[in-house]
């Protein structure tokens, strides 16, 4: 345990020494001039779109599993499928995305392919988190609504779902944190090393922080120092989202008086 903490501190100091060279102006400069603007925008576009797809599907799936699913074989299979999906290596998801979205459906290397591929990675995270959030909502709320004559869906959507909303939002944010830095899945589906400006339609390829970092190091054999800035930006984005999710979780746990 002590060794871990020492190693951790040493890594931090190495990182801190490199921060001095960071030039904030590069955030808004185009890549054509050595800046990072398109990469940052690309990464944001990618995770926003993926979350927009996986969010609703994941929440609906979670509602089904908690409130509607009969306890039988089909439900157990779905449950296991979600666990399996969560464990699929990201490179395989990338291969699948490339085959289905880029080639079969003809989207080529594009933002859209990236959205669809990344949403597969977010989906299990949203489903599991939303399931938990929905499960802890007291059944009394739903019952009260049913007793007043609401249909099952209305009772759930107007009471349980609203009460579970903070937890659901937290899980979506965690999903975003997961894919913001994802590389393997977008390797062949959405990203290229350089684009002319930001994409004007989802069918265009897009730059991304993680992709850029990876390709520069592995394909071009550059040393880590050359991508230090990009690493820093990516790190800040991911850590921010994770922290926001954690803080939200703590904040809403206090704010829900029915959690005794």
């Amino acid at each position, binding site marked *: 345990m002590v060794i871990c903490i020492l190693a951790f501190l040493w890594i931090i100091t190495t990182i801190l020494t490199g921060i001095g060279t960071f030039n904030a102006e590069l955030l808004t400069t185009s890549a054509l001039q050595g800046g990072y603007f398109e990469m940052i925008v690309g990464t944001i576009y990618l995770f926003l779109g993926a979350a927009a797809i996986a969010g609703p599907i994941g929440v609906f799936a979670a509602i089904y599993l908690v409130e509607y699913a*009969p306890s039988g074989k089909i439900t157990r299979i779905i449950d296991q499928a979600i666990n399996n999906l969560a464990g699929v290596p990201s490179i395989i998801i990338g291969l699948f995305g490339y085959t289905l979205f880029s080639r079969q459906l003809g989207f080529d290397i594009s933002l859209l392919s990236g959205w669809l591929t990344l949403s597969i990675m977010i989906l299990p995270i949203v489903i599991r988190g939303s399931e938990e959030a929905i499960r802890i909502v*007291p059944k*009394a*709320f739903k*019952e*009260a*609504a*049913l*007793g*007043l*004559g*609401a*249909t099952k869906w*209305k009772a759930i959507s*107007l*009471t349980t779902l*609203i*009460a579970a909303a903070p937890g659901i939002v937290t899980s979506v944010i965690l999903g975003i944190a997961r894919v913001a830095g994802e590389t393997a899945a977008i390797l062949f589906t959405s990203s290229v090393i350089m684009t002319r400006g930001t994409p004007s339609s989802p069918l265009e390829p897009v730059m991304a922080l993680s992709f850029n970092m990876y390709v520069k190091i592995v394909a071009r054999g550059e040393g880590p120092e050359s991508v230090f800035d990009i690493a820093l930006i990516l790190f800040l984005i991911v850590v921010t989202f994770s922290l926001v999710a954690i803080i939200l979780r703590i904040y809403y746990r206090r704010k*829900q*008086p*029915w959690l005794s």
Partner: protein
Amino acid sequence: MTYADKIDIRKLNIWFGEKHVIRGVDLKIKANAVTAIMGPSGCGKSTMLRAFNRMNDVIKSCKTTGDVFIGGKNVYQKNTNVYDLRRQVGMVFQKPNPLPKSIYENVAFGPKIHKMAKGKSLDAIVEKSLRSAALWEEVHDRLNDSAFDLSGGQQQRLCIARALAVNPEVILMDEPCSALDPAATAKIEQLIRILSSDYTVVIVTHNMQQASRVSDYTVFLYLGKIIERGETKGIFENPQHELTEEYITGQFG
């Protein structure tokens, strides 16, 4: 004075899985009166109550046979609109269950989902319901506060107001005071007496004294069967059946 029968139950049988909980009950419940269903814990009182607004439908292992006529219509008929039934037959639960919303939104919930009113007329309904539940004076200046800010007794009166807001004809109460302190209980018992002039009230209770205080008619349910029924005064002063007498004198419960 004779009252018309509001609820007419015929050959009601309810099973939970293999367990035969309500065994062949025939019962008529008078309109604009308070009928108490009493009996020891676990004899099926709540189950029978929930059969009147078909809340048992929500439980998968529950099977019901027989007929329940409310206001002349059989609610177990195939084409019954269950959602409208639950508007007509309101329910107040054992543990107060306010919705996680403001006081106003709790009362407005029912009228909203049944599309009964909007805007100013909705405000009027909310006020009227809260007044009928004897809660208006205490909350009129904080309608936007969370319902959870209220005390237990106030929450239960809020649930009553919520049920009243959709204009029911019958109000079912499942041991409404068992989670409340004596002062809150007294207020609600008072409220029940007042409500009976406009609504048909059926209250389930395992508290005999409450049954004798609050109701016009009493039904003694034991192990899923009706042992005795009649005017409350008569049952408590002069029970006809041996079991009833034993229950009233506290020999079991």
